[in-house]
C-alpha cells in the first residue's frame, strides 16, 4: 500500500509540476520553440505511462496480482530519451537546411531571418532534449518505486 501511496505522491507532484509550467506559460514557449511538436508527444506518452504504472502498482498492492512486470515501462522511459534525441537531430537539420537558403550577406534583413530560422532549429533541439530527459526521469522514478514494492 505504501508503494501505491508513493506512486500517488509522485503522480500528484508531476501534475503540480505541469500546472506550474502552464501557469508560467511554458507550454506556449514550447509550442513556439519546438517546431516538430515532439515535446508534446513525449509529455503525452509520459502522462499515459504514468497512469499505466499506477494501474500496475494498484493491481500489485491492492488486488494482490503479483505477476506484474514493468519491462515495457522501462522501454518507454528509454524511448522518451530517444524521442528527445530524434528532436535534437531534427532541430539540427532544420538549422542547417533553412539557414542558407535565401541568404544575402549584404542585406541585414536576410541575415536576421537566417538567424531566426537557425534559432528555431536550435530551440527545437534543446527543448526536445530537456523534455525527454525530464519525462524519462519521472517515469524511471515511478518504475523504481514500483519495483521496490515488488
Amino acid at each position: 500500500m505504501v508503494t501505491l501511496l508513493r506512486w500517488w505522491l509522485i503522480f500528484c507532484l508531476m501534475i503540480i509540476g505541469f500546472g506550474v509550467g502552464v501557469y508560467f506559460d511554458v507550454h506556449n514557449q514550447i509550442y513556439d520553440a519546438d517546431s516538430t511538436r515532439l515535446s508534446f508527444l513525449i509529455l503525452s506518452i509520459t502522462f499515459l505511462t504514468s497512469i499505466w504504472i499506477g494501474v500496475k502498482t494498484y493491481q500489485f498492492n491492492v488486488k494482490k496480482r503479483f505477476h506484474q512486470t514493468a519491462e515495457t515501462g522501462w522501454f518507454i522511459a528509454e524511448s522518451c530519451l530517444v524521442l528527445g534525441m530524434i528532436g535534437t537531430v531534427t532541430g539540427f537539420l532544420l538549422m542547417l537546411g533553412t539557414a542558407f537558403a535565401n541568404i544575402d550577406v549584404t542585406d541585414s534583413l536576410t541575415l536576421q531571418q537566417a538567424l531566426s530560422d537557425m534559432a528555431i532549429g536550435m530551440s527545437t533541439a534543446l527543448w526536445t532534449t530537456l523534455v525527454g530527459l525530464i519525462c524519462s526521469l519521472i517515469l524511471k522514478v515511478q518504475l523504481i518505486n514500483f519495483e521496490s514494492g515488488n
Partner: protein
Amino acid sequence: MDSNSKYKSSVGFTDMLFNILVGFAFLFMIAFLLIKPEAKKEDFERKAEFIIIMEWNHDAPDDIDLYVEDPLGLTFMWKTRWGCRFLSGTLWAISCTSIKMIWVTETTKLLSVVSHHRLLSIEKW
C-alpha cells in the same frame, strides 16, 4: 532486460553531446554570417585645414550669424538658420541645430570666426 542495463543508458549523454555540437555549429554560423567585408575606401581624398562647428538650441529665438574672412578679404558668411551661401572651395553641412564649415583648400588662413561676439571652437583637421 537485466537490472543493470536499465540504469546504464547513454542516450541522454549522447543527446547532450549532440546539443553541444548544435550549439557550436550555431555559434560558428553566427560568426560566419557576421563577418563583414572590408569597408570601401573613399573615392577621393578630402583635404581640409579647419573645421568650424556652430551649434545652437533649436528652440532659441536668437538669430545666428557666422562670418569667416580669409587673407584675401573674402568673407564667408552664413546669415540665417534657414539658408547658406555656397562658396568655391568651401563645404557646408547644416542640420537643424548646427552648422559645420570645412575648408577644402589648404592655403586659406582663418582670421576670425564670430557668432554673436563669441569665438567659436576651431578644430584643426
